[in-house]
């Protein structure tokens, strides 16, 4: 290494040092500390007592844990499929320029940037049994239901609302990712396919989809990764829908507090997350 190269490396280290410091202190270390905590009975005030694998055995014997896993699986399935399909549909619909496209884009992106805390109230009102438009439509206009229903009050139907909410909020991001790939497909590929006799459907399956499979995989993996940890969107809209993050939150900070158990839940979840992330880094990552 020449002195100039060494100087460059030193400069680089100086620049990344603050980042490394805060990230290791406040993310990497806590992840390890979490594993440590999962072997203890931990009180809210910090007192600990070693229990070995006790938290894990307790967790695996808890039927609520399995029900949370089931809810999470449904949540992931619904949101990933819904977000990807809606994002794809939006991208296909809006890929060609038209007057007002900028405004439409802004309107579509708004759910993504809006604070969860604000929009959940809008959603709650929409599904409110007394004043909500949804019940009005189902009961008074379409006469599908005979009486008004509290959709968010019942955990089973609330899961549906929560999934719909997530699709509404995160389809824009799928749309953005897919669109940017979509517009980069060279036009002459479509022209060649149409000269070869393919109509719009044929062009979609033979040109568009093969070009998109990579970005679709990205979207699906990213949705899985983010939604596995999704807390606010679920908890604030329907606190009775117990996906794993909410289950963990309740264990850690409400009712009969058991932070060791929450730590154990997080450790298992981290394992699953790592598999997703590994997959993402190996197969998809471009940076």
């Amino acid at each position, binding site marked *: 290494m020449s002195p100039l190269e060494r100087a460059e490396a030193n400069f680089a280290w100086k620049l*990344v040092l603050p980042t490394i410091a805060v990230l290791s202190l406040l993310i990497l270390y806590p992840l390890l500390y979490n594993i440590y*905590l999962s072997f203890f009975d931990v009180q809210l005030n910090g007192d600990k007592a070693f229990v070995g694998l006790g938290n894990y055995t307790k967790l695996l014997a808890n039927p609520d844990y399995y029900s949370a896993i089931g809810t999470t699986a449904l949540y992931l399935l619904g949101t990933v499929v819904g977000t990807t399909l809606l994002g794809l549909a939006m991208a296909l619909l809006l890929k060609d320029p038209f007057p007002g496209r900028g405004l439409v884009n802004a309107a579509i992106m708004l759910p993504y940037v809006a604070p969860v805390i604000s929009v959940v109230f809008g959603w709650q009102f929409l599904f409110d049994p007394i004043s909500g438009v949804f019940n009005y439509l189902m009961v008074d206009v379409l006469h599908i239901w005979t009486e008004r229903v509290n959709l968010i009050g019942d955990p089973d139907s609330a899961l549906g609302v929560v999934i719909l909410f997530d699709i509404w909020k995160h389809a824009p991001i799928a749309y953005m990712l897919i669109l940017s790939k979509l517009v980069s497909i060279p036009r002459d590929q479509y022209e060649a396919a149409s000269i070869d006799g393919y109509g719009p459907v044929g062009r979609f399956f033979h040109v568009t989809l093969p070009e998109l499979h990579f970005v679709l995989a990205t979207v699906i993996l990213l949705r899985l990764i983010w939604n596995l940890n999704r807390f606010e969107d679920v908890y604030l809209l329907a606190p009775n829908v117990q996906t794993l993050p909410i289950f963990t939150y309740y264990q850690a*900070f409400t009712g009969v507090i058991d932070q060791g158990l929450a730590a154990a839940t997080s450790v298992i979840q981290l394992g699953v997350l790592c598999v997703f992330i590994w997959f993402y880094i190996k197969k998809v990552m471009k*940076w």
Partner: protein
Amino acid sequence: MLGKRTIKGRIGFAFAVVMLVCFSLLPFAQILSTSLKHQFDWGNPSLIPQALNLNAYKELLGLTEVKKVEIPVAIQKILDNPKLPQDKKDAIAAKYVANDNLFPFGKYMLNSIMFSVGAAFISLIFAVMGAYAISRLRFKGQVVIQRSVLFVYMVGGVLLMVPLYQMAMNIGLASTMWGSVVCLFLIYIVQTLPVGMYMLGNYFRGIPFALEEAAMMDGCSRTEAIIKVVLPLSLPMLATVFIYCFIIGWNEYLFASVFLKQYPEFHTLPLALQELFVSKNAIWDRIMAASMLTLAPIVVCFLFASRFMKGGKTDGGVKG
């Protein structure tokens, strides 16, 4: 010609776009509508209020007069006692002046701004430094750091809430008010830093390296080249990253609830709104107005950022 549209196709397209926009905007419209409605109007499915009600906004923005509460005679006597020190008198008087119903929206908004702007700012500085090093400089460990940042980016807050809370507890920060504030501030930095670094890293990589080399040939040191060439070119992205980080902080609920729940004077907007919602004082128009006001800065920032993003400034400096 591909993509030729018939009349039917155009109508179908317009219909689909309108449906999409409605789907995206309906909840916002509902919030706005309800915030402007009187209570008797809530059950009315129409989005347009029968009579405009601005009381909720006035109240939140502190435009209504503070209601004077009668101070009982017995208490007044105590207050008139000259032996009592002035601060004790004020404390007692405050109990009777304070309006139970009042929701100090301005204070919460200030808290939110303090946390999210502060964290976004520090995060941006760190992110610029880190992203530059990772995308431009050659050093051992570059790849490892790069991947770690990506990994950390994807670890969600729920996995960290217990250990972070316990760490703060162990060093005594979580048990004091200011300690909790510091914790939350640090956590917001950490929550936004990886995203910022990721976005900026990708952006820096898109700036031709030859520009910095040219600056160095023109006599600039590395640092000068960064300040005089790279940063001016990155302004739109810097603004975007700042806004993005700001939005993350502004929207955050989980850690605010873990660290600040028992310190109402530092409640951020999400926390305050949730508390309001579960409290007895939940009135739809007030909640909706508060939501609207929480939403507004984000919408403004977002529109600003999306406009700012359009000028891709690097083309032209390098071959066309």
